């Protein structure tokens, strides 16, 4: 399990990529990705292309990120979701809070 982050080419979006399991065991790593004071960010993208499994604590972590990014004003995209992951997001009505792709 590993989480990597980088700023997009235009400097506006923080790209966070999750590899392997996405749950509370990666909480600290996940938080340290965005809690670095990159003030000029307009949005976030969480890329789940390589995420194998996730549980409800991962959902909680995404909500904490949303809160950090401005709550209802946050621009967060969750990209490359597999059908199983999309289903989990749908059950929790996450598509109302995030842009899920």
């Amino acid at each position, binding site marked *: 399990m590993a989480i990597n982050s980088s700023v997009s080419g235009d400097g506006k979006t923080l790209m966070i990529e999750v590899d392997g*399991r996405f*749950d*509370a*065991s990666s*909480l600290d790593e996940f*938080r340290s990705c965005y809690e670095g004071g990159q003030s000029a960010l307009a949005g976030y993208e969480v890329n789940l*292309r*390589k*995420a*194998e*499994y*996730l*549980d*409800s*604590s991962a*959902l*909680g*972590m995404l*909500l*904490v990120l*949303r*809160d*950090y990014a401005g709550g*209802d004003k946050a621009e967060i995209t969750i990209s490359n979701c*597999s059908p*199983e992951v999309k*289903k*989990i997001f749908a*059950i*929790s*009505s996450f598509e*109302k*809070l995030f842009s899920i792709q």
Partner: protein
Amino acid sequence: MNSVKTTDSVNDVAPVKNSSKAKIKILVAEDSAVDRMILECMLKKDGYNVILAEDGVEAVEKFEQENPDLVFLDVLMPNLNGMEAAKKIRALSGDLFTPIVFLTSLVDTESLVTCLESGGDDFLSKPYNAIIIEAKIKAFYRMREMNQTMVRQRDQIELNNKHLMQEQEVAKQVFDKITHAGTLDLPIIKYYMSALAVFNGDVLLADLSPTGSLLMLLGDFTGHGLPAAIGSMPLASIFHGMARKGFSIGDIIREINGKLYHTLPVGLFCCATAVDLSFHKKRALIWSGGLPEGGIYRAASQRFDVLKSGNLPLGVLSNREFNHTPIRYEMNEGDELFLWSDGIIEARKPEGEMFGEERLNALLHAKSPVADVFGNILKQVQEHIGDSDGDDDVSMVSLAMPNENVAQKILLSAPKSRGSLADWAMTLRLNTSSLKTFDPLPLLLNVISEVPHLRQSSSVLYTVLSELFNNAVEHGVLNLSSQLKSSPEGFVEYYRLRKEGLAELVEGWVTIDFEHQLEEGADGGVLTIRFTDSGSGFVKENDIERTAEGNLHPNYYGRGLQLIESICEKLTINVPGNKVEAIFRWSTDD
């Protein structure tokens, strides 16, 4: 032998050194004693090693004994004239080039031409010119050396080639066994693979599954020769191993894809079509990636239905991005499925014209029905190829839906499901020290992935197991309250407390029970998951506030049990909540 000097090119005019001249052996055959002596003197003065003969017969004898580098033959000699001697010497020297120069006092054009036509390489006119002789010897010696190098290299290549052929012969036997193993000899399967096909990375596998299906895979690795064929080894072993344990075609395809993705270099992959033909369900599940679309010949309508394709070949995408879901097709008695590699479309005439999709389609959609479609296509393709021995790697297979009697007979040889996990139960109890350090989820997922048909649900089952385990640890053993998680700060605090709680844990345990059973007819099964913990129960304080539809003020907790309920058929929380049971039901896709 006597060549140590290597010659870089014909234009190399460097003088032959005296020391090496002594190594050049020249045979002079001349019946006139005076002429013989003159030539002998000239050559010896230049430092050559000279051997003499007085007539043609002696010339041939001396040639055999001394094996000279160069031969000077007088045209007119007693016993055997120069031209006859030249023929014999040519025959004796075999592959090795021995320059023969005729010595003649004749000057008319016709005689000189006859000299060359009878096997001479050049002529020297009397009286001799020392400079010309020297130049000719040098030139011919260079030619002889080049010829020797060439013969040596040719022999080396022949030897190498022989070794290669022997190696390929052994390798081919191995590959033939691997790629033709299983149950291809069943009466419902017709197949053809040309001699070159296997070695060019075509693979055809079939096996019976304990679920009562026939599984088949036709694959075509990119590239040619051994590098292409090498991938068929892991492919075949995964296919047969999983097929006989009862894994679904989707699971098998996914496993093969992952293996090829991780082992093959980029650019080497496998176009394939995989089939699960169920006799009693009268259907085929077909996954296709990269091979030309095959089709199903319908017995009733005598029409040909083209298969849908659309997946990338095996070994291109990681399993995370890979779609292993097959498409379902009805198969009635007498319907026949056809698959082929692109070799059949690209099969070439000696002049290079391809067989092409048009010809194939014309055969498939012919108005007047043909009794033996497979034989007919094969015949036309072979006639098209003719005697062309080009890159012909044609693979084609057909699979017919049998009637009930034949199906019964075939299934007698199917493996019983004994080899796989079907009816089983297990209990894992984590006591204090394990609970502090050990993460049981990978272990549990490993067990689940050994169970045919549960494996494909491992992603959702992970979510279920993770929720139940975390519930048991956090709310049971550690007695943490979810309400902590109602703010972002609390969320982080909650997980800090969890870490701290586990580190300081004095006593606690979690028991995990699994029970798995197949259902009647083996079309599905039930997995019962039970988590029991040492805590006093969480039901009261975990009184869940569900996120209402349209609620934009999210809760950071309370989603776990909801997720389990959506995935499992039934979730039972026994009051006071230290015992939770989830029932997960699966059935084969159709």
